[in-house]
């Protein structure tokens, strides 16, 4: 989500409360809101209506690239660029090349997946705004950006209080 958008945030102390709040917020028709928690909460994706991550596709494609490049590297260097008789073995000794190919596959897949995560989460981010330091420890929050449809501070505040928010605060930017 773009940086520097103000909005309203509600702090909760209980996992089920924030889940509740998320569902409610969604049913209220908000789409741009997000939930913040110290750990991944089971069922939060549905609650906030988040689509399944697309990273696996990246993994697959780059993995395949790794495999092919491994194959090409071993084949080209050993059989094309400078074929040498080594131990009376064929120039292109495929079985012996499999470990290389395998390792390259893994390496490409793993590293590019991590890259994908960084991209997806907009990491790294220098000194991001913090709604409440305890959100990485034992508190939970729902944040509704001001540009969300039907954004109404009073209404939201009331709603969150009803849902058991210990605190509702305006956030200058998040």
């Amino acid at each position, binding site marked *: 989500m773009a940086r520097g958008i103000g909005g309203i945030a509600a702090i909760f102390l209980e996992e089920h409360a924030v889940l509740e709040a998320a569902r409610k917020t969604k049913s209220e028709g908000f789409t741009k809101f997000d939930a913040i928690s110290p750990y991944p909460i089971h069922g939060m994706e549905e609650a906030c209506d988040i689509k*399944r991550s697309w990273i696996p596709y990246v993994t697959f494609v780059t993995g395949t690239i790794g495999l092919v490049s491994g194959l090409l590297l071993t084949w080209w260097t050993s059989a094309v660029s400078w074929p040498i008789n080594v131990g009376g073995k064929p120039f292109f000794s495929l079985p012996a090349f499999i470990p290389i190919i395998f*390792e390259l596959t*893994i390496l490409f897949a*793993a590293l590019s997946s*991590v890259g994908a995560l960084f991209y997806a989460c907009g990491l790294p981010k220098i000194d991001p705004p913090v709604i409440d330091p305890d*959100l990485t420890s034992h508190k939970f929050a729902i944040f509704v950006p001001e540009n969300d449809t039907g954004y109404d501070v009073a209404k939201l505040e009331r709603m969150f209080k009803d849902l058991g928010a210990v605190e509702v605060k305006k956030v200058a930017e998040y």
Partner: protein
Amino acid sequence: MIKRNQLIIGNKSFKDITDDICAPVERFPSKGWVGLFLGAKTLLIFYIFVLGMVLANGMGLLGVNHPVAWGTMIITFVFWIGIGHAGTLISAILFLFRQKWRTSVARTAEAMTVFAVMTAGLFPLLHTGRPWLDFWLFPYPNQRGPLWVNFRSPLLWDVFAVSTYATVSMVFWYIGLVPDFATIKDRAKNKVRRMVYGALSLGWKGTARNWSHYEMLYLLLAGLSAPLVLSVHTIVSFDFSVAGLPGWHTTIFPPYFVAGAIFSGFAMVITLMTLVRIGFPQFKDYITIDHMEVMNKIIMTTGMMVGYAYASEFFVAWYSGNPYERYAFLNRAGVPGTSGDYAWSYWIMVTCNVIIPQLFWFKWARRNIPTMFIVSIFVNIGMWFERFVITVTSLHNDFLPSNWGNYAWSFWDGAVLFGSFGMFLTLFLLYLRLVPAISIAEIKPVLDVGKDKKGGH
């Protein structure tokens, strides 16, 4: 799902968890830690000196000779690489199997992996005759033809496997750390720590969207690491089994080595965890006796796998009817009529790896900290000797009796071996102070596991 004891005892709140785990990072180091650290650091400096000497004077300082051209360095390399495996196994494979208990130990086990692989990684580089030319092992375009590398050589497979393994397990570890770094940053009282951990946390915010990508990536990395960790020790075992030497040239090596690796790895985890529990009592609530017991069970199981491998090697040697193979194994066991110069090492190995772990048939042994500590030490010793037996006894009596000779063990061999512990322990102790030793973000979801009101998840 079977009813199990709580993973975390002492009715913790999330706050308590955060406080407990962050404490070592935020508190001033205890005397005990400082003492250990100074010891380890001294050993590390000694290690650096020793490697310097070897570098300056040549491999001749060590006992390697003709016919035993591989010795302490390769043995210890395999030893440390093997230890690394437990970490990845816990963090990746047990994760895929949804073993919730892993969360308490995963972080430290992974750290152990990273440091073990770092320690191991030095050996293959330094044991070459001309270490300053090691970069020739990488296939890079050059002005010599270009002259590439020999992709048929298991050593080259090693280069790829070990470097990939090191990279991936480090990344995996770090990704796990990111949310926790964020936690520490947010709790930070002083500016420097805030900045450092802020940087380390990459600005993690923990929104639901981030978490969903994050969990997916974690799953993927686990999925990739699982085959990787198996492949690494398989390939390490190829260093031996691809060669034609009697005692090396056996198809059982890959599974045998992987089992051995897990075996030694878990032993090392136990060794370290018992120490961590002493050093940081609050962790006892997270790394409970139950955790230890599970790992002890694994040790016993893998121990028996290894024992099976030893036995089957003998069977195959006999069954193959290959005289060289037969001699090699009779010689290991020191049967009369063979030189049997290294039978002692073989029997140390069998005692430590097969016999002693049998103690874990008894529940009390599995749940008794001193006992498991001692057993784990024995297993560590035994596993080092396993590699010694494989490397040295196979080489010292091979095809032509005229070649036969013994390893010329020297002071430097011992120095290299023990020095490597200096490196490992230094890194590990630093880790305990600078990084949350248990994954804060991962432990919280399993807080309720085993609690009566909810049961499993």
